[in-house]
């Protein structure tokens, strides 16, 4: 993902960057287009599925990166926005609401095309983001974390219990029979033949997700180098000073919440389409923690870092499955540990190691590196203590 670096670091010589960037970008694009076929041929469909899921996580992690990495607002309930997006898609593309709508003439709503659902999911999730942001504007750090954690749980419980007086979410059972995304009459689940190449549903989802991941990366990168992006970072650095520079901290924070949440909403809608089924159990606290771990492990505030974190963490279970079982079969003759049980152990150790050795993350931004590795500002002795007003 080296082509991103140009967007992330302020370019000193635009001419050079532009001439290097374009061929590099095309090269990466070609590689990304071949990738699913290579993976399928060498590692099989299970890995292709993991790759698809990884892309959903990349979108989530980049969304959370706006809230935490840029604006510095610790959000532990981020998965709620994923849920909002997922249920938006599910309700608009399944028979769940049919009893409610039959005979009203609005049954057509239950086949809302994805190009309408995606912006709608982004919008609704953004709205929920502001809903969370508004009452927590004065909170910081631990206090904000607790409130956002509660918010995430509230959304999950709401989805579990929104069955009376009218059954909207179908409670803990969740929503089934969600129609996959379709484009101009073509269902993404039916195979496409391009000459001798067959594009399975997994391939098609891969390309759909790829397009959206690229959009999300572009939006993230452009926001970072903009007036609003600078305001977010300024708030994270020093909120009082940011106010004194004329930044309306209330609005700018709300924008961060809304923007981050909307990425989560898009990812959620894609998840519902891809999975064909949603239930509240997909949106537990542990998921929020996972996305947070991706951002922290990869490098808060740095787009390539966050992508790296999302890929590493979402691939780990798959890698473990492929390594642990064969190893056990070979050396022990029986399977003693389930790979899923090892997953948390591995995560915990990885996080502890990263926090000890590279607290700024695996691939940090220059700013973040400075924060962790260089001394704080030197204030001449006497100015702070001696001459207070």
């Amino acid at each position, binding site marked *: 993902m080296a082509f991103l670096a140009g967007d992330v670091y302020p370019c000193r010589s635009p001419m050079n960057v532009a001439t290097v960037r374009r061929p590099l970008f095309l090269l990466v694009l070609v590689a990304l287009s071949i990738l699913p076929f290579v993976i399928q041929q060498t590692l099989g469909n299970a890995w292709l599925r993991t790759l698809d899921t990884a892309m959903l996580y990349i979108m989530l992690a980049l969304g959370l990166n706006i809230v935490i990495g840029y604006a510095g607002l610790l959000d532990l309930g981020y998965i709620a926005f994923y849920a909002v997006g997922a249920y938006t898609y599910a309700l608009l593309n399944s028979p769940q609401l049919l009893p409610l709508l039959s005979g009203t003439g609005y049954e057509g709503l239950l086949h809302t095309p994805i190009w309408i659902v995606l912006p709608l999911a982004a919008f609704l999730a953004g709205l929920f983001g502001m809903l969370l942001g508004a009452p927590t504007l004065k909170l910081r750090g631990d206090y904000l974390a607790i409130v956002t954690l509660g918010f995430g749980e509230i959304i999950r419980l709401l989805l579990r219990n929104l069955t009376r007086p009218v059954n909207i979410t179908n409670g803990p059972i969740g929503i089934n029979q969600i129609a996959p995304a379709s484009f101009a009459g073509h269902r993404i689940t039916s195979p496409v033949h391009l000459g001798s190449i067959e594009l399975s549903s997994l391939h098609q989802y891969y390309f759909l997700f790829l397009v959206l991941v690229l959009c999300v990366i572009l*939006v993230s990168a452009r926001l970072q180098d903009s007036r609003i992006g600078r305001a977010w970072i*300024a708030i994270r650095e020093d909120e*009082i*000073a940011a106010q004194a*520079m004329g930044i309306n901290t209330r609005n700018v924070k709300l924008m961060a919440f809304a923007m981050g949440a909307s990425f989560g909403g898009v990812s959620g809608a894609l998840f519902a389409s891809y999975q064909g089924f949603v239930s509240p159990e997909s949106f537990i606290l542990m998921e929020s923690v996972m996305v947070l771990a991706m951002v922290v492990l990869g490098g808060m505030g740095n787009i390539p870092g966050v992508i790296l974190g999302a890929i590493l963490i979402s691939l780990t279970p798959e890698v473990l499955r492929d390594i642990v079982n064969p190893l056990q079969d070979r050396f022990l003759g029986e399977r003693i540990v389930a790979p899923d049980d090892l997953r948390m152990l591995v995560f915990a150790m990885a996080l502890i190691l990263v926090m000890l050795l590279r607290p700024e993350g695996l691939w940090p931004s220059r700013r973040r590196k400075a924060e962790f590795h260089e*001394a704080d500002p030197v204030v001449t002795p006497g100015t702070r203590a001696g001459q207070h007003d």
Partner: protein
Amino acid sequence: MTEALLEIRGINKRFGGLHALNDVSLSIRRGEIYGLIGPNGAGKTTLFNVLTGLYQPDEGSFTFNGIDLFRKKPHVVVASGIARTFQNIRLFHNMTALENVMVGRHARAKAGILGAVLRSRRTQHEEAAIKQRAAQLLDYVGISHRADDIAKHLSYGDQRRLEIARALATDPILLALDEPAAGMNSTETESLKRLMQTIRDSGITILLIEHDVKLMMGLCDRIAVLDYGRKIAEGVPETIRTDPKVIEAYLGVAES
């Protein structure tokens, strides 16, 4: 008499039982350097925070450049043309010097999320203008060679200068400086003094808190003295120097 740029009347600010500002009135004229002095704890910084919107006063009135700024939020105050620096430097420590000043342009720019994402022609122009202005200001305060350095790596004196550049980036009419010379040696203080005079000569009014009385006497057009939250004197430096109330506040009463 020149026109008053900033006028406060009967400002009161209490923190619980502490009456930090007691019925303070003052007016600052356009184009002057107005000094604020007083012993530790007199309420100078509190008054600063009231004037820049960080504190909301309990009573009084506050007009600036014909606009009512009583109990207005800091971003409104900045937009109206008051910029400030902080007593204990508050830079965005992990941003570069240039980025710090670019943040200062926030209030004078418009681009929102949509403009940034679509990178419209207007946004691009605005962004280029922000960068150019920021670079100019770094040059103006004399630290353009540090533009790409992380703010906290700058020397103490350069950090003070960067804070002034950042404040100037908001296009202020009134620049409020909270102890800009604190911790500086005499050479640094001297060049800071010249910088302040240059800024004033460019048409910006300056409000200054400073402990260095010698600096204040040589620099300010008028000075107000605060003690225990009250304004005890106001006038040109010569009268302040000989005012018995001021001497008493600083040195105590002579026993007779």
